[in-house]
């Protein structure tokens, strides 16, 4: 944990995108995440940090693990949580997002966590609302807490990411996870390679300071981690690749291809996995896979983000015993 990171105060009301974060802010989130992760192994996991606060999870797009992780994180911080999904939302009756969110604020919510299919929605709400807005994924724009948990997991496994070769494989074009990870990994000094079919990994991604490849072997060669992405049928037109079978035959990660990675390389996936499409089932369950560690770290990361945006002090959780949380 960097001393400088924890001594700086957290000044953001909202948590919208990795692109806008400084390296120091990313380090702050990591430091607080590490502290909360220690609380997760206690007998009594719950801490009183957000007691009396009400957090509303406004999930206007299907989600399981992200929503549960945010709910669990809020509850472990002793906050009251209300989760709304598409079916329960007045947006299905034609209410605008502005009105829905302003009503939730008027109902005295202290924070809104939003998942939305339209890119830019959390930023739009953050400008409208007094209360903090946390982005739980907006269209193909960003999924900042996923990137934080991915990088936190990488740091636990690999240490300093500077100069490490990380390959992101799959549907980059439609992936908010890829965008957030590109920003986070490049800020942390990693060498990022994107690989996949040219229709899903357009060449202009190189403008973000990453390499683009359509050759799986060279992209995986000596990579210390490979992040797989789900093939998102729902976001693609039918012409992006011929078939799932062809995708798997050309870009699916199997045992043979995994051997091209660095010997100690880890395999990551934000889930949900399409077993047998992006990755062989056995490989997903192998020792090299950290997929479930990512899920666990997702709770600690979201605790950190909720805590910081609620005004929590990074210093208060800096000690190993975290007495004040």
């Amino acid at each position, binding site marked *: 944990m960097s001393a400088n990171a924890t001594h700086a105060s957290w000044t953001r009301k909202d948590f919208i995108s990795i692109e806008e974060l400084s390296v120091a802010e990313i380090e702050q989130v990591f430091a607080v995440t590490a502290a909360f992760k220690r609380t997760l192994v206690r007998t009594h996991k719950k801490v009183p940090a957000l007691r009396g606060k009400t957090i509303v999870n406004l999930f206007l797009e299907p989600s399981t693990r992200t929503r549960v992780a945010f709910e669990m994180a809020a509850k472990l911080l002793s906050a009251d949580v209300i989760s709304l999904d598409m079916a329960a939302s007045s947006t299905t009756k034609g209410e605008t997002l502005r009105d829905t969110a302003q009503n939730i604020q008027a109902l005295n919510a202290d924070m809104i966590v939003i998942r939305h299919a*339209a890119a830019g929605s959390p*930023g*739009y709400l953050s400008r409208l609302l007094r209360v903090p807005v946390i982005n739980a994924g907006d*269209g193909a*724009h960003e999924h900042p807490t996923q990137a934080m948990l991915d990088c936190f997991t990488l740091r636990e496994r690999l240490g300093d990411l500077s100069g490490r070769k990380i390959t992101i494989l799959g549907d980059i074009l439609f992936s908010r996870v890829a965008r957030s990870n590109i920003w986070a990994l490049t800020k942390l000094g990693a060498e990022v390679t994107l690989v996949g079919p040219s229709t899903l990994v357009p060449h202009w*991604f190189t403008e973000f300071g990453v390499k683009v490849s359509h050759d799986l072997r060279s992209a995986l060669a000596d990579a210390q981690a490979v992040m797989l992405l789900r093939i998102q049928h729902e976001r693609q037109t039918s012409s992006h690749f011929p078939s799932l079978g062809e995708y798997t035959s050309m870009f699916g990660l199997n045992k043979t291809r995994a051997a091209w990675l660095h010997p100690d390389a880890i395999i990551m996936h934000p889930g949900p996995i399409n077993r047998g499409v992006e990755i062989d089932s056995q490989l997903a369950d192998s020792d090299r896979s950290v997929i479930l560690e990512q899920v666990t770290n997702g709770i600690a990361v979201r605790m950190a983000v909720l805590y910081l945006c609620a005004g929590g002090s990074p210093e208060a959780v800096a000690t190993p015993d975290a007495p004040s949380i």
Partner: protein
Amino acid sequence: MSHILWIKNGRVIDPASGRDAVGDVFAVDGRFTATLDTPQRDSARIIDAAGLVVCPGLVDIHVHLREPGQTHKETIQTGSWAAAAGGFTTIVCMPNTSPPADNPGTIQLIQDAIKREAVVRVYPTGCITVGQKGQALAGIGSLKRAGCVAITDDGLCVQDNELMRRALEYAGMFGLPVMDHCQDESLTRGSVMHEGIVSTRLGLRGWPAAAEDIIVSRDVVLSTHTGAHVHLQHMSSGTAVEIVRRAKLRNVRVTCEATPHHIALTDDAAGTYDTNFKMNPPLRTEADRRAIIDGLKDGTIDCLATDHAPHTDYEKDKEFDYAPFGIVGLETALPVSLDVLHRQEGMSLLDVLALFTCKAARILNLDAGTLAVGAPADVAIFDPEEKWTMSATTSLSKSLNSPWIGRELVGRVRHTIVGGRIVYDQGRIRAD
């Protein structure tokens, strides 16, 4: 009793004749005259235009007035007010109303409203296809007879090449230009902004310039084949400009327009998901912007047009994906164009004003855009140096979806005169 107007001491710029000199402009009974005799001078209404530019009333051949059907956004009356405030005396309204203007009855409804409420000259267009569905030709001859000056499915693009071919052939018989909104819809499903580095960063569905280039190419080919006049609306792609440039070298009967926003802005402007930068076609790259400007300079692009597209605040105030395309432009077109083309690019005032007057009028054979003796006495008088800020309180359009709201502009219309009568006078519409 004659209605006599004497505009004195202005810098008179008439692109149609090449005149650019300090002088006077005279009108009697709604038409320009060479001079006034002494009794006429004694009874003339005098406007002192010292220090101001006096030019033909501006002509905009691409405006959405939303009537009938969407009068919560704009009406023929409020749209004509906004036009007058922007120095426009002649505007051409698009037929993508509700219902679409695809028959003489709807055109008559529009003509009645124009006669009743408009303060500037408004010419309707009719649809190319029934209901703008792109499936069957509308009654183009009847639309011409009802007063349409062109046909277009603007807002949509006829995807069927055979149907477009027949539309050109059939409309050509009546001497009606076919205006086309160039968009290959198979390339733009779900697209909301230009496809490129900005859309990639924002995670928004990209709209490739190729979607425009393909239809522009098709229309050039069909115009070549049929000999009919096709007018390409709101050019946004550098490649499309080059396609037109080459077509014109072969004397293909193709004309085209560009909007002030496509010469002033690029896709970078959408970087904060501000829906006032969401338009169709989308703002494109700096290279495209430069190509549009170069096309205006060398005559490849024939004129400027606003594509004035009003939407209410509550329609625009939402997620970028869900907001409608388009911005209003009548009141800001002149200062924005002067800023880009005159001050930044060094084009003469006369050349810039030509794009909004005689060149625009010529495309649709409109009796407008000149100070020639005998022509309708339509005049815009503006201060090219006056700084002002467009605001919700001063705008005369019913909608305020403009990226220039709250921004300082240079160049402001003082008076707009239609048929020798002042209809806009320093911020106010005059009914007399």
